[in-house]
């Protein structure tokens, strides 16, 4: 299976003030990857690097390999609709020129000049999957935080991306709504063979969906298996009970699967 992300010992200096790297990430098509890290670990910067939204000339001192969807993004640093990023503040990611949720979701496919029937079909599917049918005629700017986040996810997934980067994108949703949104994303993943990168400071719900996990610490990635439980506890938000268990029962996270198992949610059918 083709690799969506092929990043190997990448080191970049962003804006001359923040150094990312060494970063090693491998992700196959249709797979989920969790990048866990605390505040200031470089999650948002990494997310922007992956989708090519860093300003021109902001990257210096580049080493290593960085291929996203088969193209070297260090050479072709541009936004493409096949790479989508959802960030914490949904309102800023709306087009700003649509007065209904329905029009907002259709905005991207309209820009792709798709046939009307195709656009309507994508919009209906997205509205249904993210449970936004009742918001169809609402103004996007008047939505609550959680509603706006669901609508934004719908807006992004109607573009049928091949790589979806969720930069703490579910923070405004309740636990139930978070899992509903992730289940909806899972449907798209299965349908489109889209890869998902979740950048989170919380272990759950990322761990429920992502079989591959890495820790981002001061701009450096470390495989989950090599992390000491104490380090994980410091960097990532965990349930209290799990924290206690990790401190007591495991010397390293090789054994973590057993410890995590009781906290994991079973996979839901699409």
């Amino acid at each position: 299976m083709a690799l969506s992300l092929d990043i190997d010992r990448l080191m970049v200096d962003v804006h001359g003030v923040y150094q990312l790297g060494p970063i090693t990430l491998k992700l196959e098509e249709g797979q989920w990857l969790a990048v866990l890290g605390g505040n200031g670990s470089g999650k948002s910067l990494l997310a922007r690097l992956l989708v090519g939204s860093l300003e021109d000339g902001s990257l210096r001192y580049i080493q290593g390999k960085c291929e996203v969807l088969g193209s070297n993004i260090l050479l072709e640093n541009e936004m493409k609709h096949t790479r989508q990023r959802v960030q914490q503040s949904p309102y800023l990611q709306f087009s700003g020129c649509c007065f209904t949720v329905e029009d907002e979701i259709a905005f991207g496919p309209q820009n792709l000049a798709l046939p009307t029937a195709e656009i309507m079909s994508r919009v209906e599917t997205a509205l249904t999957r993210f449970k936004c049918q009742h918001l169809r005629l609402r103004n996007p700017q008047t939505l609550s935080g959680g509603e706006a986040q669901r609508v934004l996810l719908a807006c992004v997934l109607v573009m049928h991306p091949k790589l979806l980067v969720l930069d703490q994108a579910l923070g405004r949703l309740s636990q139930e709504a978070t899992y509903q949104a992730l289940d909806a994303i899972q449907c798209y993943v299965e349908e489109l063979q889209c890869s998902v990168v979740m950048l989170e400071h919380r272990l759950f719900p990322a761990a429920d969906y992502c079989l591959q996990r890495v820790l981002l610490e001061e701009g450096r990635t470390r495989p989950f298996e090599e992390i000491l439980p104490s380090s994980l506890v410091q960097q990532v938000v965990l349930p209290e009970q799990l924290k206690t268990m990790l401190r007591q029962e495991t010397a390293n996270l090789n054994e973590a699967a057993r410890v995590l198992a009781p906290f994991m949610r079973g996979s839901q059918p699409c």
Partner: protein
Amino acid sequence: MHPFTWLALWLWYSVSALFVPLPILVGWCMVPVVMMMMWAAARWRIKIVMVFMIPMGIGLWLVHSHWLQSLFSHNDNVSFAVPMFAIVLWLRLFVFFAAAQLWLQKVPTQQFVAALFSSRLPIGMAYLCAGPLLLKEQLKQQLAAIKEAQSARGVSFDGSLVQRLKTIVPLLSPLLMQSLNDLTTRSSALDARAFRRYPHRTVLKPISEYRWEPFLRVVLLCCLLVEGGAFWLYHSISIG
């Protein structure tokens, strides 16, 4: 009618005010006011017109009647003739503003933006034209968030007029900075949604128009050219 036809009507009516003589100009500026008074839904806009135009009129009178000049220069030889230039200017601005209020009442922002996006204008240009109309909702939301944050820091938004005036700086400076900071995020979001990727985009809800409307728009623009030409010619001959 199509929003662009209403826009052409407004443009014709407002620009024509530049060419009509003073006696007609008075009647010209009464027409939109009378229409607003007769149209119940638009009646509230009369207040907006008055709030905007009366202080402007006072300002123009003070400046052009030389009253301010006499106040600051202590010159007794200042002439206090009726400032006809200022009166004509004010009446023309009145026509522009009052007719614009009628246009805004007739064409909701949503409809005008839809018309812009379904027009033959390049999408970037359409977005640029729609921009000022779209700012209101976004600024309102940002302002509410800033107000909440400043209230938490002890800034009081109640009290006398002076106290409320003092709160303008803690409101406007973060609003301006935040709006500028958000531009990068907004442009990235538009790029990600394939904005301007292709020269044409699909129009889902085209705005319908009568067959004669494009003709009317052309006629109105031609009328403006003829009026402007006649006005220029008349003045050239008078001066000559």
